[in-house]
């Protein structure tokens, strides 16, 4: 499986996870008050517009086919919960067009290096960054009080989550960061580097490091 196949598998897992978790936990873990179709679409929407490299044609539009069965299941559950068919149809139709539109734009932007670079910046500043800030604005006040007193979790591999959990205001005053608190994001960085550099060496026909 190449890097893109792995990425599609991860996106598939993220989009189907809410449905599996609800059933496997017998309803103990549910995402109340939100559309499952929207949860399913979120990772695919992110994948659709992902900037491409010139040498690796990602074929994002085709990979979106994998979203269809999950989307059918999620939309059916939304309908069973009382969502009107007309609203569902408009939402799913609009979201599908958006996915295809971003996928086409990302594909078109592969043609020249300048366009690829410009698209990369537009995508980064326009899609994931506002989402991260919006999430942080809603998230930080709710969790700041009890953030830093526990052992760093798996999630601290993510630099954004680590920054939030160990920000000065969220830590006990005067205390320096222990090594165990500093380690996870650097471990995350090392893992990311190993994955990216290892794959690129393999694609260039070089032996792995």
């Amino acid at each position: 499986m190449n890097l893109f196949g792995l990425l599609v598998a991860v996106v598939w897992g993220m989009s189907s996870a809410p449905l599996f978790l609800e059933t496997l936990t017998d309803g103990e873990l549910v995402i109340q008050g939100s559309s499952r179709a929207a949860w399913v679409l979120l990772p695919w929407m992110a994948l659709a517009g992902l900037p491409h490299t010139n040498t690796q044609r990602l074929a994002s539009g085709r990979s979106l086919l994998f979203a269809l069965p999950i989307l059918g299941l999620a939309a059916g559950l939304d309908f069973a919960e009382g969502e009107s068919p007309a609203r569902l149809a408009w939402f799913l139709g609009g979201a599908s067009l958006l996915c295809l539109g971003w996928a086409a734009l990302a594909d078109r932007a592969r043609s020249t290096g300048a366009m690829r670079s410009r698209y990369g910046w537009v995508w980064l500043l326009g899609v994931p960054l506002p989402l991260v800030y919006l999430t942080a604005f809603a998230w930080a006040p709710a969790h700041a009080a009890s953030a830093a007193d526990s052992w760093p979790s798996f999630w601290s591999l993510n630099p954004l989550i680590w920054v939030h959990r160990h920000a000065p205001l969220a830590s006990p005053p005067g205390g320096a960061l222990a090594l165990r608190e500093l380690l996870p994001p650097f471990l995350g960085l090392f893992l990311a580097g190993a994955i990216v550099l290892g794959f690129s060496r393999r694609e260039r026909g070089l032996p792995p490091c």
Partner: protein
Amino acid sequence: MLGLLFGGFFAIASSVVALQEGNRLWWVELEVEGPARALRIEAGEDGVTKLEGGVERGEAFRRTVPVPFSSPLGASGLSVGVLPRVVWSGEGEARLLGWSADQPAAILTRTHRALLARPRPVPGPARPRASTGALLALLALTGLSAGLRKRPLAAGVVCGVGALVLWGASARPPDAPETVRVLEAGMGPRALEVTAARNVLALPTQTDRLEVDPPGVVLSIALDPHRAGSVRVRAEGALLRALRAADPPVLTPTKNDWQDMAQVWTRSGEGAWRHHDAWPRGEALPSASDETEQDPSPPGWLASGLAPGRGVLLGRCDAPRGSLWLRLSGWGE
């Protein structure tokens, strides 16, 4: 002095009326001679009562039936309001003789005022979930389409058809909407059973009062006049609560003379909650476990709104019709 008396009387009368005005279940005397079909009692914008099954030729009966009426002045306001209208098809005769002389809601308001003032349970919406079969089918479809990735047209057909099949398999309401039952009690001789559900509620027998949230919503009541206990209330998007007088639980710290309880929590007058193990009938209350983080907390909706400074016992009984919760105040006093 006279002003004080008038003030007190007015306050009591207002609270009684305020309690009654939330009731949407008032009873009328109906007399029917068959043949009659599609019998309905229409209460204008408040809703309708439908009598299921026809009345055959030669059959006649007189019944007390509920109508989903709003009476801002409670039972005393019924006599000055317009009587609902009965409509039917067939050669028979149906007429309303008037409001029933005994209105259970009015009696309940007089006898259970303190218990009626407690906060009401709010059932969560029954959230449909994907079946295990649907999830397995999803995995199989994904595996199949991944195997066909070199043939995009075939993969597209598989994914599209799979999406439609999974839509069809999941797009139906859950079988059992969530119903919450709570027995409200103090240390006195009365208790109140509250049954709450969303959208549709099968009224327990001898329901005294029906509350609806939002209050002005149109209700549809369906009942079979030949079968007792067959009353169902429907109001799409509304929260329905049926209340009835019940026997109080017979519980003392040394003996449970009521029924098996799967979980018990007690609160002292100082406000500290303690979790106990299951409390079988006939036995003494198990000692509270040492407080640990693993101890389940009482549900927030059940533990909220309780009078401070009083002992409380909360319990859950597993019953065939779903869980029955107990909220008993004055415990240990």
